[in-house]
């Protein structure tokens, strides 16, 4: 504790030393990051801590410098991509009757490859968080547009540590979002008929991707009227205003080509050079609503502006709304660090969202950096106990952490193809990239399971997936992985089956103490980071068998499905 306080003081530029008349005491060395703390950080900032990455982080400095150094290095890394893997999988030429939806599989497979082996872990983790806020899904109208879905995810990775306003515009004009929330092809009202603009994107971009339903204070608290009711951020007339803004946009097509009309333009299915599945939508001016448009904050757009100008001003109108900072900050904190941030934590991050110190608004790299370096994410001490508020790990991130920790791979070199999950990752884990059941993501940021958590006014979004059914699926997955898909069994496996490298565990399998400690080092960040109760029970189970494989399987299984591993501290 004292060490840390000293460290913080020096980091802040030193205290008042006038009260120390004689020679200053010898400098106390600032502590290194401990392995449990490194694990905590890497489980927040990557797809799962590994001993290798923890050692690298620890080597980057002390508790005041290592995290920031790691983050800054990550911010500089370019984004891993999904689109090339999808494009490479297209047959050339695409035969008539080809099952284009099958090309969603290489996207998911590449997502696992990037997640397990990609160097840009922080960017990837933030992109994954953003993909749960700016949601598109192959389930539905995008099924036969696999390039668009892949490119949309790549957009999120590219913009993940850039500007919010840029992200909002790129998302808005991406044809994947255009198709998913039906802004693509949205047309103006026709006088004398009951035809009027589509309200889908107008509603969801405000509700889910920027400001939310109700007015928020900077600390994320809901603002209430005199009667105690939350104050809505918008009403139907504002939705209709934005719906009118978002008219006239459809697939890209050269403006010089007279065949490119709003009615005729179609998605290009094969990956031709510059094909429109991966190009921003373009305006077809004749279909753009020309009247005035009522927006947020009392703004009304004048009539007869260009569609492009309307869009710019409308996105500025959203991005400058005071709700954006607390709304986005709270959700990013929830997805990276804790389900229940304190209002002060949200306020600190939202303040930085509004101005990063250089006058920039919506600087996502600065926001993510601050979220991870905040005192609430990096509590004092070398934490074995879950002193931070924490969260439940997403089911899929429990898997990616295990796979990363055990260097999982398949003989074919592929990473996580569908057969590993009996058909699809979301069948087992309730989630997967581009696999949300709806625009509302796999779970709600405000979900509170009945009982203790709801009664305390807390939330635990990820527990919306913790049904008896899905918990059984996930638990069984870890059993199969631990007992039947390890390096020992690898020669007998299908070439695409992911197996984990438990050879170190096999080496110490005869000694249950050594074995349990080894697994705890790998999955929990230390042999002192497993509770004595859990360690005792797992050792006793291990000792029920003399088979090295069974002993290792039980140790890995019981720690991987334990409440302790499920918690992100």
């Amino acid at each position, binding site marked *: 504790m004292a060490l840390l306080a000293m460290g913080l003081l020096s980091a802040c530029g030193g205290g008042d030393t006038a009260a120390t008349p004689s020679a200053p005491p010898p400098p106390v060395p600032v502590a290194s990051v401990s392995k449990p703390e490194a694990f905590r950080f890497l489980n927040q900032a990557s797809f799962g801590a590994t001993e290798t990455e923890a050692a690298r982080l620890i080597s980057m400095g002390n508790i005041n410098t290592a995290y920031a150094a790691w983050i800054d290095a990550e911010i500089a890394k370019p984004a891993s991509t999904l689109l090339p893997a999808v494009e490479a999988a297209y047959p050339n030429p695409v035969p008539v009757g080809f099952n284009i939806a099958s090309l969603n599989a290489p996207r998911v497979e590449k997502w696992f490859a990037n997640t397990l082996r990609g160097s840009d872990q922080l960017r990837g983790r933030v992109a994954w968080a953003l993909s749960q806020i700016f949601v598109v899904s192959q389930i539905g109208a995008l099924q036969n547009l696999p390039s668009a879905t892949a490119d949309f995810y790549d957009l999120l990775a590219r913009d993940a540590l850039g500007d919010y306003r840029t992200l909002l515009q790129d998302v808005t004009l991406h044809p994947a979002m255009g198709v998913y929330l039906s802004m693509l092809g949205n047309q103006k009202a026709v006088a004398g008929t009951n035809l009027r603009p589509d309200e889908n994107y107008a509603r969801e971009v405000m509700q889910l991707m920027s400001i939310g339903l109700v007015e928020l204070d900077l600390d994320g608290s809901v603002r209430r009227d005199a009667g105690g009711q939350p104050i809505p951020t918008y009403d*139907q007339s504002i939705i209709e205003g934005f719906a009118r803004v978002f008219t006239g946009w459809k697939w890209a097509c050269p403006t010089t080509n007279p065949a490119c009309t709003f009615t005729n333009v179609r998605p290009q299915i094969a990956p031709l050079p510059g094909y429109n599945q991966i190009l921003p939508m373009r305006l077809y001016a004749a279909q753009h609503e020309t009247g005035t448009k009522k927006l947020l904050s009392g703004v009304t757009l004048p009539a007869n502006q260009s569609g492009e100008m309307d869009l710019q001003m409308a996105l500025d109108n959203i991005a400058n709304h005071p709700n954006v900072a607390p709304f986005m900050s709270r959700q990013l904190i929830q997805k990276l660090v804790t389900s229940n941030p304190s209002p002060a934590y949200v306020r600190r991050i939202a303040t930085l969202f509004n101005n990063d110190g250089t006058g920039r608004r919506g600087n996502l790299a600065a926001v993510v950096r601050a979220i991870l370096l905040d005192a609430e994410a990096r509590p004092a001490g070398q934490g074995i106990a879950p002193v931070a508020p924490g969260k439940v790990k997403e089911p899929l991130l429990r898997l990616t952490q295990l796979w990363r920790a055990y260097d999982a791979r398949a003989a074919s070199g592929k990473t996580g193809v569908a057969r590993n999950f009996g058909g699809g990752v979301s069948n087992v884990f309730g989630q997967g990239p581009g696999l949300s059941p709806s625009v509302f993501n796999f779970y709600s940021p405000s979900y509170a399971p*009945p009982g203790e958590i709801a009664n305390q006014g807390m939330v635990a979004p990820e527990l*919306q997936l913790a*049904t*008896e059914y899905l*918990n*059984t699926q996930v638990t*069984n997955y870890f059993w199969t992985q631990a007992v039947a898909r390890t390096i020992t069994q690898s020669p007998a496996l299908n070439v695409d089956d992911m197996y984990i490298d438990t050879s170190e565990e096999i080496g110490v399998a005869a000694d249950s103490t050594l074995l349990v400690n080894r697994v705890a080092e790998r999955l929990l960040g230390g042999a002192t980071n497993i509770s004595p109760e*859990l360690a005792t029970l797992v050792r006793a189970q291990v000792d029920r068998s003399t088979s090295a494989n069974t002993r290792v399987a039980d140790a890995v299984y019981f720690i991987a499905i334990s409440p302790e591993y499920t918690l992100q501290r």
Partner: protein
Amino acid sequence: MNKQRRKFLQAAAAGGAAYAFGRTSGTVYAQSVGVGGFPDYKALVCLFMFGGNDSWNMVVPTSTAEYNAYSTSRGGEAGVGSGLAIPQASLLPINALNSNLNGVTFGLHPSMTGMQSLFESQRAAVIANVGPLIRPTTKAQYLTPGWDLPPQLFSHNDQQDQWHSLRGTSLLKSGWGGRVADLLAARTADQQLPLNVSLAGQTYFQAGLNARPYVMGSTGATTFAGFGTTGVNLARRQTFDAIVNGTLASTSNTAYERSYASVQQRAVQYADRVNTALLAGRSFTALPDSGVTLSPLATQLRTVAKMISVRSSLAMSRQIFFVSVGGFDTHDDLLADQPGLLGGVSSAVKSFYDALTEMSMEQSVTLFTHSDFARTLTSNGDGSDHAWGGLQFVVGGAVRGRTIYGSYPLLQIGSPQDVGGGRFIPAVSVDQYASTLANWFGVADADLGSIAPSINNFPQRNLGFMM
């Protein structure tokens, strides 16, 4: 349109009383919280159509004036420009027993032959223009600042929450199915499973303040791998239980860990019970175990039927099942998608009803539909947007069928119930709809307020569609 019909439609909309038969349900218990179990078995099956079913194309007026109003509002018939109206001649005629329709006739979407057969044989009823409300509301009241309205009208998740919870402007954390389970806890204490069972994931509808639902797979309970009855496999189960129980007993860990552990505990316990019971589960000709590929919805309903068939071995006397089907958010491609969506619901529900008759349980089981909202009558080009009141079906042998309850509005833009674009203020509330079902299920009239918090704001506590 003749004056008489218009008068009827307006009167019906104002009070929602026009179609109702009366208020009594077949069995009225003086108390919900009685001593001892129920002497009989009853089940409710909630079928949620996620996304907002465009139900104005599901039950459509066929008499000329009303059809023409509908067709005009929808931009004309399918295939003509952006029109969304189902062609008049293709609608499946239904012959409601209502004495108060004043010549207005209705038909079902052409894909709904199963539902047509259920309706005509008095096994299905339509609840017309039902939706979330806090009190009866006119358009003038809707436009009055400060009037009690469910917050965030026309938003998917908020309106789903309203259907699930009936919470109005309160912050209730329970759903109405969950509250039924809380209320009947003492009378169902010997049940081996929670009163609420979901075949379609976690739902707010089934969350009680105390009672928690059981979420099982759509084909049954999944067994835990690696567990057995002897040796190391038995020990593994015991180790699993010990870790879970130790976590639940500890106070030095977090609420997150305890909440996760409690699900693990329930999963393993209930899987044992369900799988043991389902060994004796029966098969159904109407929902076969093999030979045909059932839709996901029909698969869920087949499992519900099997669970009902083993009710005695699990000591179940009251059950609420939740099943769902998605894809109803038809901002695009409405006309292309509706035959599959509505036809899928119709055929799955008909097969489910037939399966119930195979085990003579049709009098004891009532299926009812929910959906986020109906959709705008007006077209956005090839689809429709989020609206409010709409139509729902109730199906079962205990339903007073072949009748339209609630009030079917005149489908005219700018009509007294239209708040813009063909978004209709509901004529009856979900509170009334739920209360009627809960009353049949065994919730006493005096207790309906704890199930449906706004029910006392409405003149009718029971819409009369249950025997």
